[in-house]
């Protein structure tokens, strides 16, 4: 080979050194921190302990984990249903319109996260657009309290991550071999059966990718619960934040962060499994058309 590996290593060295010094070492440090004890006056006492991980399973904190999982799970479900329907509608639109629709579906995703979340405060607050619409329709009662509810947090998460789900689901939908659906219809399957037995299984990888993205980003989220939940709905991200910036219990915060990473890795592994199984389905379906 023409290129000596040494030259390639030389080119990669500065970036890899940067990542090692400012990502690998700090993350290893957090992992180590999780095994130390909190000092009496804050700070860190360097004696080995597993207490912090035990505390993660304490009913109080385990409750917050379950709460986070429930909120993130609901947001994921809603985002996947809406996102898949949108991706399907885009993929079924005339070819020349598809890139335009896709572009405008993703565009909001490119604006600032804080601002997109703030937009929901403007909508949902007691004198916001929704209340005014209700009044316009003749509603005279108390303004509904929508902000600072679990529903608001879920709406914010769905809103923020929906474009990615649309993108992830569109990819396999647009690549579908039209002959497969045609064959299914010719063999007498209804549109619903064709969707359930042919289209849906072939697009599982896209759904899985979108779902993992929403779930992982939602469960570690701290901005949305803080702003739209008004601090009333603590999620893991908020708990980590508190340990580092207010409670000053860094070792426990570190253990929480590691638990968050563990959940993320589990979800990613589940996704890889789902993708593997789906590709098995796909090759089966592909074999059917060849034969």
């Amino acid at each position, binding site marked *: 080979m023409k*290129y000596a590996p040494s*030259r*390639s290593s030389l*080119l*990669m060295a*500065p*970036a*890899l050194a940067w*990542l090692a010094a*400012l*990502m690998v070492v*700090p*993350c290893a*440090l957090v992992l180590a921190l999780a095994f130390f004890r909190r000092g009496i006056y804050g700070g860190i006492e360097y004696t080995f302990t597993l207490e912090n991980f035990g505390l993660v399973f304490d009913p109080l904190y385990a409750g917050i984990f379950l709460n986070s999982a429930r909120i993130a799970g609901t947001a994921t479900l809603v985002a996947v249903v809406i996102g898949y*329907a*949108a991706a*399907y*509608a*885009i993929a079924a*639109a005339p070819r020349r319109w598809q890139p335009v629709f896709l*572009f*405008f*579906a993703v*565009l*909001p995703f*490119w*604006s*600032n996260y*804080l*601002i*997109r979340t*703030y*937009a*929901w405060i*403007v*909508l949902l607050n007691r004198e916001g*657009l929704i209340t*005014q619409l209700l009044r316009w329709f003749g509603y005279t009662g108390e303004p509904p309290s929508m902000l600072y509810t679990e529903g608001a947090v879920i709406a914010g998460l769905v*809103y923020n991550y*929906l474009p990615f789900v649309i993108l992830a689901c569109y990819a396999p939908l647009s690549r579908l*071999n*039209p002959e*497969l*659906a045609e064959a299914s219809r010719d063999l007498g399957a209804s*549109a619903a059966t064709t969707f359930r037995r042919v289209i849906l299984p072939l697009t599982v990888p896209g759904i899985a990718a979108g779902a993992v993205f929403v779930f992982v*980003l939602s469960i*570690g989220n*701290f*901005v949305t619960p803080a*702003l739209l939940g008004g601090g009333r709905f603590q999620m893991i*991200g908020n708990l*980590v934040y508190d340990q*580092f*910036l207010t409670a000053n219990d860094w070792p426990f*915060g*570190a253990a929480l*962060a590691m638990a*968050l*990473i563990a959940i*993320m890795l589990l979800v990613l592994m589940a996704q890889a499994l789902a993708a593997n199984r789906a590709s098995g389905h796909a090759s089966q379906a592909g074999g059917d058309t060849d034969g």
Partner: protein
Amino acid sequence: MNQSLTRTFGMRTILVLVFAFLYIPIAVLVALSFNEGGLPTAWSGFSLKWYVSLASNSAILSAALNTLIVALVSTAIATLLGTLLAIGIEMRRQYGKGLEALIFAPMIIPDIVLAIALLSFFSMLNLTMGLHTIIFAHVVFNLAFVCSVVRARLKSFDWSIVEASADLGASALTTFRRVTLPVIAPAVIAGALLAFTLSVDEFIIAFFTAGAGRASTTLPMQIYAMIRFGITPEINALATIVMAVSITALTLSQRLNRGIIGQ
């Protein structure tokens, strides 16, 4: 036309509803930024006064300057390191899964985890935190994004033209400048624009690595503080400007990338 997807139950309705869901919140925000009245949510006439009042808000101006410094410096470093990394990786025919994971990690680690990791690291080193520590942190994820954009371009790169250049007697540097760089330039610029936007918009990591005091407050930190305080027409105006900047930069970046795919 060969349609594999049946257009049964009101595809048009779905599209209209989804786009309404995506755009109404932003549209309301932008519209209210031009609202005359002090009430943040009731319309009372067109005005640019909130934009004018932004221009005299020193806290916002200094936050904007800080953001610009952080974004420009971190983008410059990340673009250089990320591009070299991409070339280094694509040069070799094989590389381990570990390397792939290391480069992928900054893009998927939850912000809050990287934020506390860097906070712990910097405070353990007794490093005074400020704009420089935010820059150090932003380069971490920015270089990963630049690298992935440039790598996508290099996938279709014909390395034999580099060999040809070398055979014709060009030095490695000349070959890079005259052969490799012109080919990857659109991807490098696209990657830089992406990095710039990510840095301008990044809040959590900046929040944790900015250190105490207001001196190194960035725009997202300023916006967060303002939002927590309440809805004001000024935030609407500021939000509109920040959105316009990010969307312009990313549309440009996308354009450059599409040009690549089109070739």
